[in-house]
């Protein structure tokens, strides 16, 4: 196994072997999951198999997380630059991009050419959408890089589910406004994921549009100029999805709508669990404090981290947005989710259960100490939460 060596300022030498190096290939092949269902359907004639990837992602994966558990192994800070520079890792993210196109086109082809029952058709669209949601995550990794190649690859993969605006508002909007009430993609205590989505999806788009059109204005161009990156990716989406409609007919319309919305929903779910209730404080002058490690929810569960390119090591990601996925580090004493993201999504989709599990976890965080003033509270639920948790007593986690 490849070893990285660095010399510290005091002359000591530090050595690191990345045990996950080849395990990252799971993230490369995972987006081909629709073909497991398609292949089994083809071989057995039973269209039920098309739904298998749902069981894999939301059944098997959380179970594997539970069994295999957490992995806190991290590269020492001194090693991070070398690990980041190793091109092996970024090439994996490049390799996934075409696979997301293959995944959508393949799923669309099967849905468009087979005589599927309505529920199998719908199920396949959901599977395809979930898979393209993983593509948004790949776009997240690529979009955070400085190189033109990687940003272009990000735009390509984000175009698959018509979410090309994401990396603009994410990099320049979310990373600036994270864990404040003003951030449409940071969820508030007492806000269900369903209400959050109604704020997050349009809010993120509006923010992306504002950021990009302000840039164009500074360059003396109109919002509708061909240089508008949001319009560029939308054109790409139009060609791709328009092409599928032309190739496979009108039944592609419901297929693609379900696909797109499900992909967006994956991102909504990730956004929801990542900063729920966490709040950056304002100083006397109204300046918001720098994002601290305790402003993100984390998970170190190995299998889900491998599928998501370490997205779940979220605190380090916010501390160092340009740090590549392979180098993201675990910290002690961070807000922690009870499971990897997929398991957390299941909780989030049942708000009453989410509140039961997460609200006391939130209140018990050391920097919160039961004080609602330290929490990003949904204004509509403030009175209710005050009544329930208003005393200074900290509930036991």
């Amino acid at each position, binding site marked *: 196994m490849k070893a990285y060596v660095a010399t510290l300022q005091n002359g000591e030498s530090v050595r690191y072997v990345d045990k996950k190096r080849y395990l990252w290939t799971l993230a490369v092949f995972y987006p081909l999951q629709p073909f497991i269902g398609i292949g089994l359907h083809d071989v057995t004639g039973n269209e039920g198999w098309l739904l298998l990837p749902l069981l894999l992602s939301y059944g098997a994966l959380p179970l594997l997380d539970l069994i295999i558990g957490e992995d806190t192994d991290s590269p020492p800070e001194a090693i991070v630059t070398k690990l980041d520079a190793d091109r092996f890792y970024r090439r994996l993210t490049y390799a996934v991009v075409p696979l997301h196109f293959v995944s959508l086109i393949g799923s669309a082809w099967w849905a468009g050419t087979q005589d599927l029952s309505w529920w199998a058709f719908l199920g396949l669209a959901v599977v395809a959408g979930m898979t393209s949601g993983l593509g948004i995550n790949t776009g997240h990794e690529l979009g955070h890089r400085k190189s033109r190649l990687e940003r272009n690859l990000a735009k390509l993969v984000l175009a698959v589910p018509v979410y090309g605006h994401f990396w603009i508002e994410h990099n320049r909007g979310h990373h600036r406004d994270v864990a404040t009430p003003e951030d449409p993609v940071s969820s508030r205590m007492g806000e269900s994921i369903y209400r959050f989505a109604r704020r997050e999806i349009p809010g993120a788009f509006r923010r992306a549009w504002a950021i990009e059109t302000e840039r164009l204005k500074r360059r003396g161009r109109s919002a509708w100029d061909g240089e508008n990156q949001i319009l560029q990716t939308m054109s790409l989406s139009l060609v791709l999805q328009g092409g599928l409609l032309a190739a496979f007919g009108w039944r592609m319309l419901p297929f693609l709508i379900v696909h797109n919305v499900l992909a967006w929903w994956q991102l909504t779910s990730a956004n929801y669990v990542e900063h729920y209730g966490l709040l950056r404080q304002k100083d006397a002058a109204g300046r918001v404090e720098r994002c601290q490690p305790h402003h993100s929810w984390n998970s170190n569960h190995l299998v889900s981290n491998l599928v998501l390119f370490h997205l779940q090591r979220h605190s380090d990601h*916010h501390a160092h947005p340009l740090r590549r996925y392979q180098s993201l580090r675990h910290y002690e004493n961070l807000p922690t989710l009870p499971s990897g993201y997929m398991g957390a999504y299941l909780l989030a989709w049942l708000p009453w259960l989410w509140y039961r599990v997460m609200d006391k976890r939130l209140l018990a965080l050391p920097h919160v100490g039961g004080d609602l003033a330290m929490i990003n509270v949904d204004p509509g639920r403030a009175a209710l939460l005050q009544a329930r948790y208003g005393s200074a007593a900290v509930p036991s986690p």
Partner: protein
Amino acid sequence: MSTYGCPECGYLYDENEGDAWEGYPPGTPFLSLPADFACPDCAITSKDDFRLAD
């Protein structure tokens, strides 16, 4: 003309060059950038936190 750097990600704003992509022509002084200017690459460094690089 000076260069200002982002301590987090190394983005450099050279006043001689400006940043054409962002819409700041060559010769635009750093201090005249908008008050809410943040690092175009990482966004976590606000204008006040940039450091003079030379």
